[in-house]
């Protein structure tokens, strides 16, 4: 059992606060969904967690070990994996080479192909030539082979056909069921809420909702208000 605990986290970009006093938890077996409109600070939050950018304050801990000062590589070795926005495959490497880069000594490439059998026949193809859906599968599989405890995923559904999105969501749910702690950032809420456990809604860098996915899914009006920001009073204390 693993647990990511983020408390009072603040992150600046170009000297301006972009993420302010965020508390967040992700646990083995569960998906924590982070929602919010464009520019709410979701990507910045994940980048601060994985170490792409430094944090201005607060703590990040996996199973009690604090990571906020460590370099991205060190955080990765502590069990944090970040699937970045924009499908960051190694373009010049083949599918299989992409997987081999991250291969943990105790992991096996077969695990990646078992999760996404679509990739098997594309194993010798340069990653830049894969379809968007295949690239997304590849970056998720690649992150898994580092043997993470916590998986951060940023907007994996952007620009993909609905049938592929459903496919990816199912795969992520399975990963959580197998014991991974997942933080899933999405802009389009419905599907993410249907597979998630705990939901966070961000607006202008702050968490304005922290509660059950199921509850939020049943009240689309509230979600709408949270996104648009006319409902400060709706924030649970």
């Amino acid at each position, binding site marked *: 059992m693993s647990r990511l605990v983020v408390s009072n986290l603040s992150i600046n970009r170009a000297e301006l606060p972009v993420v302010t006093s965020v508390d967040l938890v992700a646990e083995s077996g569960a998906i924590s969904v982070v929602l919010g409109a464009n520019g709410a600070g979701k990507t910045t939050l994940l980048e601060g967690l*994985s*170490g*792409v950018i430094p944090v201005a304050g607060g703590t990040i801990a996996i199973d009690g070990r604090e990571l906020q000062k460590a*370099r*991205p*590589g060190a955080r*990765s*070795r502590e069990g944090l*994996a*970040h699937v*970045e926005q924009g499908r*960051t495959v*190694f*373009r*010049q*490497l083949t599918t299989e*080479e*992409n997987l*081999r*880069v*991250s291969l943990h000594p105790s992991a096996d490439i077969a695990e990646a192909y078992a999760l996404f059998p679509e990739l098997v026949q594309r194993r010798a193809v340069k990653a830049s030539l894969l379809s968007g859906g295949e690239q997304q599968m590849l970056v998720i599989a*690649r*992150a898994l082979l*580092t043997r993470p405890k916590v998986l951060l995923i940023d907007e994996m559904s952007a620009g993909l056909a609905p049938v592929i999105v459903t496919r990816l969501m199912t795969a992520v749910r399975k990963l959580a069921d197998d014991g991974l702690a997942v933080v899933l950032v999405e802009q389009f809420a419905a599907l993410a809420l249907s597979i998630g456990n705990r939901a966070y809604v961000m607006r202008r860098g702050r968490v304005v909702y922290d509660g059950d996915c199921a509850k939020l899914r049943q009240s689309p009006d509230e979600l709408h208000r949270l996104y648009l920001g006319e409902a400060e009073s709706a924030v649970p204390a």
Partner: protein
Amino acid sequence: MNPLLTSAVAGLTAGGTYALLGVCAVFTYRLVAVVNFTGAAIGTAGTFVLIALFEVGFPIWPSVLAGIAAGTATGVAIGYIMTRWFGEASASTKAAVTVALLVGLIAVGLRLTGGQHPHNMPELFPGSAFRLAGVEVTIASVLTIGLAVLFTILSDLFLNRTKVGLNLRALADRPMAAELLGVRVQLLSLLVWGMTGAFTTFALMIIAPQRSPNFMTLSLLVVPALAAALIGVFRSFWRTLAGGIALGIVEGLASSIDSVSQYRSAIPFLVVLAVLLWSQREARWDEAR
């Protein structure tokens, strides 16, 4: 005996050195995304450690090893500066930083080595290897070209056949994604700087006796080296290799023709200009399509 052939062959040692330095420049550019103007200066630093030890009476081969170690260390030091403080900078900023470092290295180097004061640079590999159509081909030229070919083949094998090479290619493609997967980015970058430092130092030790061995002239061998790299458009090792050797031969030929020999140091410049104009032409053609 054909005088033209003689002078062409005389350019081979320089050609091999340009080729090796050029291939190292491509290697550095492709793997750590830096157009490195300090390449030759790093080798020069190592070469002068050899000269200093030799002049105070140390035996030659241990001095060579010490020199190569010093060149490797200088390369790693420059690499540390580049990765630690300029890792996120743009390609042009990084290039500008290496130019500044070159100026600094030359200033310090000239100061420490007594400026233009002539040095006693031992010839490591005197004599000729074989005769080609009646012309002596020196061991030095065979060695520099051989070293350049070896480096090219080894880098190819290393990058395509080993795990470290795979990680380096991933790092070159997307540094942040590689780091997020736990690839030891800093260590690998320093490895690249160290490897190129070692090879350039050895190449410069071979060519130094043929040039006036002062810190500035040797450091500025980076100009023909970058010209060779440009011929390979900073991508192709083999084109760079061929380009470097061709540059040396053309320079050798030019030095035998009285009317142009004064201008032979301008040859790399002319080549750079021609390649740049040519690539512009292609770019314009691309736009016009």
